[in-house]
């Protein structure tokens, strides 16, 4: 009897251990993500429109949805232009390889900061120093599939879905604090059509949804579009760093 009990306990322990280490990564999903990442890795320039809706805690037990859209143009290795249309603001972030400029169309004020000399570092620096989160940039870098599969406990291919009339691969990843869904177009470029992130780490779960459209691949953008000339009477103000 005791033997049986011990055996049962051991079995339970082994089972629990196995459960703790459980990590399920679907190879089909990884192949699709890899393909998307490698396309991004080979691009010289990229343009797209992203439409974002996200939940915002307005007060306790009071969520509101905030909408915005961005016209983004990125050119390797060090150019970026993002014009963000929010509900009550319109902003521009412009990076010419040397400086990042923020301009508020509504208030006609701008800030200038000397930036790192490449895009990846600049995107990180914008976040750490100025709290600017270019969420879409999280998906658009070459090692995305590697980082994604490392950070997620579960990555799965949920099948073919129709998103806005297009065939798309529906892929999901999750860990204890986040669930990420990505719909990747089933065509030669494997570009994302939609992403939906659900965060569980706050007091309430909240979502961040992005729709991508108007992709421009390897267009030869003129340098001038990444340069900023202050409009007449625009006022430069000081930009406060976080550290």
């Amino acid at each position: 009897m005791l033997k049986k009990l011990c055996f049962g306990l051991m079995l339970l322990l082994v089972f629990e251990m196995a459960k703790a280490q459980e990590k399920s990564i679907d190879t089909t999903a990884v192949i699709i993500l890899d393909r998307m990442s490698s396309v991004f890795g080979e691009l010289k320039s990229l343009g797209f429109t992203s439409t974002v809706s996200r939940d915002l805690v307005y007060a306790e037990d009071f969520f509101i949805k905030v909408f915005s859209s961005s016209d983004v143009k990125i050119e390797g290795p060090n150019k970026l232009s993002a014009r963000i249309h929010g509900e009550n603001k319109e902003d521009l972030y412009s990076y010419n390889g040397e400086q990042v400029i923020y301009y508020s169309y509504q208030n006609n004020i701008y800030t200038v900061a000397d930036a790192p000399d490449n895009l990846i570092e600049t995107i990180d620096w914008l976040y750490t120093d100025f709290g600017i989160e270019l969420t879409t940039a999280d998906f658009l870098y070459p090692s995305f599939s590697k980082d994604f599969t490392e950070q997620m406990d579960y990555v799965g291919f949920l099948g073919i879905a129709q998103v806005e009339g297009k065939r798309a691969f529906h892929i999901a990843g999750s860990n204890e604090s986040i669930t990420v869904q990505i719909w990747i177009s089933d065509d030669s470029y494997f570009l994302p059509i939609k992403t939906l992130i659900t965060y569980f780490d706050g007091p309430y779960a909240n979502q961040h949804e992005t729709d991508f459209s108007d992709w421009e691949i390897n267009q030869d953008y003129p340098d001038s579009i990444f340069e900023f000339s202050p409009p007449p009477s625009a006022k430069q103000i000081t930009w406060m760093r976080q550290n």
Partner: protein
Amino acid sequence: MEKLRIKLWVLGVGLIGMVFISDLAQAQRVRAGAGRAGARPATTRQAPSREMSRPPSRPSTRPATRPSTSPSSRPNMSSRDNIHPKNSSSRPTLNGGANKVTRDRANNSKVSNIRNNPSDNRGGGNRNTINNNITINRNNVNVRNNHVRNYRPYRPPYRPYPRPPYIWGGYGFSWFRPYYYHPYRPYYWGPVWHPWGFFVAALATTAIIVSIENQDYNYNEGVFYVETDDGYVVVEAPQGATVKVIPKESKEVEVSPTVNNYYYGGTFYEKSDGGYTVVPPPAGAVVDALPEGGEEVKVGDQTYVKIGDTYYMPVQEDGKDMYEIVQVEEVEE
């Protein structure tokens, strides 16, 4: 046999044709590719023109290198490419590059953080250099009075803030009213009022001497001066100083249901036994005008006016542009 020969001939021609056409197509594609890649190898595209003409000292060298491209040195249209190396030879453009009338203006980086106050040092006009050096002479006067004992950039409100503070760089920013941006336009309180750093050769006869912490100030009509070698320089009102009268234009500011302060020229006074005592700006209170000497700073998504060490947030009350004094306290991250 003859038919077979014709068939073979046709096949041969067909094959040659296919090879030739595919070669042409290939050449076309390669050329297109080479054209692009050659013209803009992503990593080196900017190198020749930019990095040579403006290396580390970007803003200062830029104007210096510009004159060579100015119209006067332009012999004829054919040298356009030399004038505008940025849009030049290595990169075919529609019309040989733009021939702009305006010059590109160098944008100077202006970044700060909450812990240091580099942008206090501003001169210009009738103003003197502002720094923390206490030496008294006309060009080196400490117009800030944040060294006085118990100096505070603000004093906390009587009621708690309804929301947790907005954390930025180790500091928590708190306010009551909704943020409503309006541009900072310094206000002038009439001909006898002057901003910090303003120099006057002589004072009005109504000026009195106020002494606090072994420092003499000359006070007149809501303005504090420090004597220099050849005149007087306006300084920040020293907190704790008491004066008998304040200008009649002073406005009452509600600090709590029972306490009102008086506001004039960027200084807050509280009525005391001996008259009116200079007090720190009351966080949570609103004022309708700010003096010269402040700067607009972007902290996260919002823009404040920073005067000395105090942050004022643009708000609106009853449809009128106002500023709320913000509480900015250090927080543990």
